[in-house]
């Protein structure tokens, strides 16, 4: 398929997944503030720091009140990672590749986008719209379902899956980070009812609470870490996502599994192997935040590698040998 089209389809999926995860972020926080209302206002600024856009936020909004943070994360068109911006970008990408995706995918994505833009127009001071956040999650699920059901599971579909899984792995790691590194007020809180409540909130926002219970029973930090990072069956667990991503990457490249020919295959292969043969004790002794930080760095590197391998402009054989004219340089 065209490199540019693969690029668009990959990012379309990533941005829809991103929008869903921003909604989940916000929901974690709602859950937390509901159970510990005294800490309410201070609970919102960590959300901004996690997204990495705190400088821009501070400049344009000032205080990290609930209202400001919500508007920033949900509807701000100047925040490229707000739910609205994510949908807009996803839709623009979809628009450039309408002929590759099914008409149902387009129809649904367009409706999804229209739903957010009308919510943005209606919201003067966003009352924390839990309903809207739930609808975002649902619309994202629907998009994935329609993609899986109506798109041929060929190269284009694998790029969708690759983008979606990598985004999910990255964002699940950040959801974990929000709780452990930032919200933990002091070491004394570990193991207390507050701690348990907070872990439960994290699990709920990853739609993992019931599945966790089935698997591990009682809530413990160790159990949650093992479940959300290392589980091989739960679809939002990081390892599950990376294994699926690897499967799609190899489907695209055609390289025999267990070997590698290109850099992204090497990086992803190593990541998966480290996870498969590491254990929760390694993670905890290493330090959860440090571990997650490194994981995110590696995934960034992987993203760059994928871009270089599939999307970036290259020179064809004969032209590669000849010096380029200025015009050729501009279009290549």
């Amino acid at each position: 398929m065209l490199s540019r089209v693969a690029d668009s389809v990959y990012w379309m999926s990533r941005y829809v997944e991103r929008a869903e995860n921003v909604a989940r972020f916000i929901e974690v926080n709602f859950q937390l503030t509901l159970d510990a209302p005294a800490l309410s206002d201070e609970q919102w600024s960590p959300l901004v720091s996690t997204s990495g856009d705190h400088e821009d936020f501070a400049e344009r909004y000032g205080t990290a009140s609930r209202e400001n943070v919500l508007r920033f994360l949900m509807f701000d068109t100047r925040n490229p990672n707000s739910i609205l911006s994510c949908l807009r970008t996803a839709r623009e990408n979809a628009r450039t590749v309408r002929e590759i995706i099914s008409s149902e995918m387009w129809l649904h994505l367009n409706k999804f986008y229209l739903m957010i833009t009308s919510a943005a127009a209606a919201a003067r001071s966003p009352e924390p719209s839990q309903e809207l956040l739930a609808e975002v999650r649902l619309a994202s699920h629907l998009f994935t379902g329609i993609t899986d059901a109506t798109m041929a599971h060929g190269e284009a579909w694998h790029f969708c899956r690759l983008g979606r899984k990598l985004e999910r792995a990255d964002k699940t790691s950040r959801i974990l980070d929000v709780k452990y590194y930032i919200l933990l007020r002091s070491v004394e809180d570990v193991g207390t009812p507050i701690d348990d409540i907070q872990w439960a909130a994290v699990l709920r926002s990853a739609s993992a609470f019931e599945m966790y219970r089935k698997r591990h029973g009682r809530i413990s930090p160790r159990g949650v870490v093992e479940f959300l990072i290392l589980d091989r069956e739960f679809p939002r667990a990081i390892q599950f996502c990376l294994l699926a991503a690897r499967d799609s990457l190899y489907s695209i490249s055609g390289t025999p599994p267990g070997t590698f020919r290109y850099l992204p295959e090497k990086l992803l292969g190593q990541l998966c192997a480290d996870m498969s043969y590491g254990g929760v004790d390694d993670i905890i002794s290493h330090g959860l935040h440090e571990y997650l930080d490194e994981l995110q760095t590696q995934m960034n590197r992987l993203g760059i590698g994928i871009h270089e391998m599939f999307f970036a402009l290259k020179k064809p054989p004969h032209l590669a040998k000849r010096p380029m004219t200025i015009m050729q340089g501009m279009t290549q």
Partner: protein
Amino acid sequence: MRFDEYEVGEFYDEMFSATSRPQVGARRLLDALQHMPEEEVLNCQKAAERLLLQMGITFNVYGENAGVEKIFPFDILPRIISAIEWSRIERGLKQRIRALNLFIDDIYHEQKIIKDGVVPAEILFSAKSYRQQCVGWNPPRGIWCHITGTDLVRHRDGQIYVLEDNLRCPSGVSYVLENRQLMKNLFPSVFANSRIRPVSDYPLKLRDMLEYLAPDHIDTPRVVLLTPGIYNSAYFEHSFLAQQMGIELVEGRDLVVDDGVVLMRTTKGFERVDVIYRRLDDDFLDPDCFRPDSMLGVPGLMEAYKAGNVALANAPGTGVADDKVVYAYVPRIVKYYLGEEIILPNVPTYICAEEEDLRYVLEHIGELVIKAANESGGYGMLVGPHSTQEQRADFAARVKANPRNYIAQPTLSLSRVPTLIGDKCEGRHVDLRPYILCGKDIFVLPGGLTRVALKKGSLVVNSSQGGGSKDTWVMADSPHVERDQVEVDAAAFAGA
């Protein structure tokens, strides 16, 4: 829904005759509409609009924020054409495209028509889209114009006239296809009981035609559609057609010419391209050959084309016949190459480059429609009867300064079709753009795009200036059956 209050007025109406009888073929639809409660009809219209928005059937308007999409307004009351009438139109269109292809080939080779004094050399060489670079080129299979959209209008005298040919990148066929789909969803019973000729095979015919342009030795030609991108006003159509045909939609940056061959950049490396359906104007196709500042085209594309390594549809250079002054000569062109009288006449046209015509035009400027030779979309035009004294003076000055660049035509009394305006039914002026494919055979899509001027009294149907569209129904009934049916139904209608 009742039509008692519908006024045909002094215009030719496509649905009702002067005595308010239904035109041939309109009977069944009127039956259906009369049995539908008014509210249901209005709901259908609203449902259609909602669906268009959700499906993203839009166009971009130039001059506004980049990427602003608008829904192309759609009216659910169709325009109906009888089988007999259509068969004549079809013959006329085929005749015209045959002559035009011969004409374009001639002027880029021996120019016999100029030497024989039928068309003046200065008119041709001063045409904005005449491409000196195309002289001597031989397009695949000798066809220059593969896809045409010819604009037709009907005057009060009931006669169909050709308003203009569009031989470069005619657009609108995607709306024809989507409108039909919409109508089938809204009025399934009418379709089930009528014999309306289908339009859904257009993408297949188009793809067949494009593949035909590839050299014989290539078993499975690679065909792509070249688009300027999502900010082009017709982008929706580009992606729609590519999807319906099952071919790749590419932009200039996806292609590269290497060693005289056109390649496209894929995730698995470079792959050869054999046929390009290009929705890019000649000017932007190749910075090495045409405009050097074009970022939308592919450097070296023309070299690959000249070497016969890639086919382009439509061939570069066809725009010469889009010039409105050249248009005025088409009846003579048909006579010259085919030895036939033209079947579908031109609108009577005054050529300002000719002295006598120029004098007439300036004297009667208030009664005529004056058009610049190479504008489209309703721009660069003066509608005499609707203009102010100031506008006329301004235009007269322009014409005098550059007479070669203008033609004038009497204002036509365009036919009308009932249209839903609010909750009433009123007549609105329409034109018709059928689409013609020229490959191994000539295929004319039954019907085409009916554009309607939604503003009361307006004659301007273009999407960028307040126009909308309607579905166009060409009936498949045999002429014999139709005649009988008219007798019976007219009586029944009169009695109702």
